[in-house]
């Protein structure tokens, strides 16, 4: 019943969304001492399937990573449930953002991401290829180098007042601002 209400609800206000995200940190710790973080699943998948002599991938991925792989599988299923029962979602971004993005040539604001750029047919275009393949590559390289992503550093690490996570989070925003103000205008 509650689950059904949650699924059909529209976009949540920030004061529901933010605390809901934060609660995954204690929930995972209490279940089994698991530290909330998503990107280590990439390392586990590499360790599991890609043969490599690199020391970074030589550990028992099942013992340390099975929990994380299941968590990520759940995320995929949760996204499916939310879209399947919640209906198509249009994101009510600000008028200022619409104007800024229109200047970059984006006119379709339906769905969660611009259809012109995030669709299979877009892979054949230079813009789509760079955003999807290039962007994905940078996410995977960067998160492994930094030792965590937005969940592991910006939420878990910051919540535990860890200085390295503050540096990483500042880096996330620095990179995002560089891409937004310098690279995307060149690319789009």
């Amino acid at each position, binding site marked *: 019943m509650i689950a059904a209400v949650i699924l059909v609800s529209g976009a949540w206000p920030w004061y529901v969304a933010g605390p809901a995200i934060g609660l995954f940190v204690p929930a995972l*710790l209490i279940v089994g001492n698991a*530290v909330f973080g998503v990107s280590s699943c990439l390392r586990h998948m590499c360790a599991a399937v890609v043969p490599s002599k690199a020391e970074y991938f030589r550990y028992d991925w099942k013992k340390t990573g099975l929990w994380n792989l299941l968590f*990520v599988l759940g995320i995929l299923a*949760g996204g499916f449930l939310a879209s399947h029962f919640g209906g198509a979602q249009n994101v009510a971004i600000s008028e200022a953002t619409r104007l800024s993005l229109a200047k970059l040539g984006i006119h379709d604001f339906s769905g969660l991401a611009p259809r012109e750029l995030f669709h299979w047919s877009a892979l054949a275009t230079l813009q789509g290829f760079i955003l999807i393949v290039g962007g994905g590559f940078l996410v995977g390289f960067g998160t492994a180098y930094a030792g965590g992503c937005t969940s592991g550093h910006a939420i878990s690490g910051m919540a535990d007042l860890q200085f390295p996570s503050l540096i990483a989070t500042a880096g996330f925003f620095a990179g*995002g601002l560089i*891409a937004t103000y310098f690279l995307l205008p060149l690319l789009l």
Partner: protein
Amino acid sequence: MINEANRAPASPTQAPWALLAYLLLGVAFGVVLTKSEVLSWFRIQEMFRFQSPRMYEIIVSAIVVAAISVQLIKRWGAKSISGEPIDVPRKALGRGIRYAAGGIIFGLGWAFTGACPGPLFALVGNGITVMAVAILAALAGTWLYGVLRPRLPH
């Protein structure tokens, strides 16, 4: 110098019931990522352009709730369900280069794809299936890091 990433990751409880709990928590997190719209390329652009406080309100309130929870867990000496003491491992600072450089590289990718790793998986679930290609590219990125790791400054 002890480099924490040289060690294998810590091992959480992986009893069958716990594995089921992680899966279900993942499902819940996928729903939350979708309902909060933090997986939307449009929202990420709005955030980096400082055109709405929404993403900042979400991130800050998430950190505050998580921080209070972790403090309470530490103060009470709370144990996990299987009875082990809860401990959040410290990240070694070292020279700090990895956090700054890796962070910036990650940030570029975050703005390009409009998604960090959790949202990439949630987007595939949401039917934006081309994001599976972004996940494969992210695996390639992580793999290259693993190979280049001995030669990179940390």
